[in-house]
């Protein structure tokens, strides 16, 4: 396959970025999108140019590092995959592919395609946990039975990989899907109910402080989420927030 890549290049956080064009040849359908970028970078290094920097690590869709906006869509045209699992067979010979970083005020660009997603960590730090000591002096696991449906729903919410595609997909750059996934995971478990009130208030407050936008229910986040995190989580978080606010 022969392709034309238009890639966002930006020296650092302060510099102004721009799209640069790179023609590339010899791309096979079995390559992943990142392996295609490896080929590009190997060529750039050999020519004495600086390679394109992008975040990536596990390359099996679970670490949440990779974060490219491909032809305007987070993680590209395929569904339920991260960029590292997107394969070149989704593209055709002669295509032009535009590759940008995830765009959001709360995700400043560090370099080229790498963005700073530490706002997500800070939202988790505000309350994304159950306050139990980890020294092991708890009760036997089976003394906390959990309704299977709730346990499965909790698991589904917990599969969020924190990649930020939801934010990048949203016209308001809202982090509601991300935040609500963690709120839901715990809200659905008896162990998590105890701190539910403080958790939702603190996490939402931090989310707002980080500069993420509001949710206007367009559902783009759910469509682009590589893990299929459901919009129902946002509805659940809204209910939790309302009842917490009334209590508070």
């Amino acid at each position, binding site marked *: 396959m022969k392709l034309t890549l238009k890639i966002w290049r930006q*020296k*650092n956080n302060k510099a102004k970025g721009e799209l640069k064009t790179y023609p590339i040849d010899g791309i096979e359908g*079995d*390559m*992943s999108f*990142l*392996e295609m970028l*490896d*080929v590009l970078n*190997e060529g750039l*290094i050999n020519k*004495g*140019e*600086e*390679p394109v920097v992008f975040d*990536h*690590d*596990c*390359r*099996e*869709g*679970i*670490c949440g590092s990779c974060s490219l906006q491909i032809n305007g869509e987070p993680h590209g045209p*395929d569904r*339920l*995959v991260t960029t590292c*699992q997107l*394969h070149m067979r989704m593209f055709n010979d002669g295509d032009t592919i535009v590759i940008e970083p995830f765009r959001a005020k709360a995700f400043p660009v*560090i*370099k080229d395609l790498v963005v*700073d*997603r*530490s706002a*997500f*960590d800070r939202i*988790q*730090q505000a*309350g994304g*946990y*159950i*306050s*139990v000591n*980890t*020294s*092991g002096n*708890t*009760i*036997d*696991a*089976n003394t*906390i*039975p*959990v309704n*299977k449906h709730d*346990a499965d729903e*909790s698991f589904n919410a917990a599969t969020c990989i*924190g990649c930020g595609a939801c934010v990048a997909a949203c016209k308001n750059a809202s982090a509601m899907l991300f935040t609500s996934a963690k709120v839901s995971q*715990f809200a659905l*478990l008896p*162990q998590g109910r105890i701190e539910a009130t403080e958790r939702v208030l603190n996490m939402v407050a931090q989310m707002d402080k980080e500069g993420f936008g509001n949710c206007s229910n367009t559902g783009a986040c759910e469509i682009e989420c590589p893990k299929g995190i459901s919009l129902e989580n946002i509805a659940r978080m809204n209910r939790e927030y309302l009842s917490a606010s009334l209590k508070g």
Partner: protein
Amino acid sequence: MSVLDSKIPKGPLADKWTKHKNDINLVNPANKRNIDIIVVGTGLAGGSAAATLAELGYNVKTFCYQDSPRRAHSIAAQGGINAAKNYQGDGDSNYRLFYDTIKGGDYRSREANVYRLAEVSANIIDQCVAQGVPFAREYGGFLDNRSFGGVLVSRTFYAKGQTGQQLLLGAYSAMNRQINRGKITPYNRHEMLDLVIIDGKARGIIARDLVSGEIERHSAHAVVIASGGYGNVFYLSTNAMGSNVTASWKIHKRGAYFANPCYTQIHPTCIPVSGDHQSKLTLMSESLRNDGRIWVPKKKEDAEAIRHGKKKPNDLSAEERDYYLERRYPSFGNLVPRDVASRAAKERCDAGFGVNKTGQAVFLDFASAIERYGKEQAAIHGNHNPSKEEITKLGKQVIENKYGNLFQMYEKIVDENPYETPMMIYPAVHYTMGGIWVDYNLQSTIPGCYVTGEANFSDHGANRLGASALMQGLADGYFVLPYTIGDYLAQDIKTGKIPTDTKEFDEAEKNVRDLLEKLINNKGTHSVDHFHKKLGHIMWNKCGMARNAEGLKEAMTEIRALREEFWRDVKVPGGMNELNSELEKATRVADFLELGELFAKDALNRNESAGGHFREEYQTEEGEALRDDENFMYVAAWEYTGDPGNEVLHKEELEYENIEVKSRSYK
């Protein structure tokens, strides 16, 4: 006596850990506030240790190269975590988990460590459930279990195919709680590049801020290395792209012995290599062997026809298939341990029965399981005369519930639907049992430098059983290290803050700067990946699933030559004071190029076959691994002396007082 003192407590096996905890020194809460600990790596072992140490009151700094602790490669563990809960009432116990692990490791691990691991395993599950880890449950609301290789009980707890993710997010949430309290300071996008030793004790590290490129000094009263394994020395592995040996290798060069580097786990069920562009390999969880049957065609003609696309796997009847694991190992069948399953796959492929284009793959087939589950579900739903279509539909639903994400991953990569046609799999490098030598307290040969999780060598011997890595990482971090490190730190309550403006920090920082400048200024002609791929090629061909003396000697020479070429000819674009991913890769590959030679040396030294280490010269007539207990029942701990090819061997003899050492059979 050897210079290696394992510090195994005296007394009966089952009482050692309790007695040890009662005997060791404690640090009082007020004094803990004056003690700093550095934790390098935030996976299961590092994240859990950091959270627990901070909760105890120590001041903790964590370091990870990823942009968030949540992305450490423990996240990718799929199948599950073992614990001797005996919830299934199938005869499990601490002793049985201990026994299975020692036997699984081919009698090359320490009894006392493994028993402790089994002893604390049940507590891990309690802890994780309390933290809100959403394990799989049965309809009654209780926890579900599944089976893994090398055992005859169901003791594996799981969260679909994402158990590592859920456990890591649990440890990350415990870390977040402590970050919020100000007890952990996280240094993300930071890489440790040297250890600082003052008066013989580990007192800090030199780290590079990977965004600004700044070289930083960090002091502490103890340093914990939890930076994972070194599988990426093979270039292609199931490890993350950034997984590296650098932190371990730097402490090794500062005096920590490296144990059993040749013990590498080649996992039997990975997606086969598709081409030269391949950057990494993807695991298909061992849990799939609960329901998948492994086979190749009985006749070579059929294998060839399948390779050329002239026949489809489903065209072959049951009689035309060779379910070689069930044939060779009737009592464990498809659930033999990983080393055994990998070698058996290689044997069939080498003999010409492999099935994908390259001939390097075998089938993992779910058709029988789909039929079995389908019938079961039909009966549960009151349909006692179901059609074939109904059975298949119901059966597929069960399989999807159990392994949905793995099947989806397979389909995205291979572009074939594994519900309809068998998966193709082949062994790939997955885990490293070897690592930094530690004593019972998880302390390396450098006082104050502790090593946990995959980075140490301690619990898995020559082969790790499935679902035991998660168990070990969390056991070390939540339940072992927080006790044992206190014993050491009790002597530091009056030390006060360690200054960083000392000659030892100067020297270590200069060391790091020199290394980075050398790489940047080298201006050679080949990229880092070029050398890494070449190294991987040597390792896979000569230090892979089957090794022999001649090949290992060649490997040592070739790796040495490649290392020299690397330093002459590597090209690292960009500068030091910026985000420079090529520079990061270069520092890591430079260390792999040294480790690789020691790896081959260790494999050459070990004139026996044990677990993941298979020397072609040492096998039974049936092709099984042949140990030499008389001469090799020891841990090979290597001391760095300036050259990886000339390291000095120290032996820790292994003693088995509670278990009868037998030849390992799964037949």
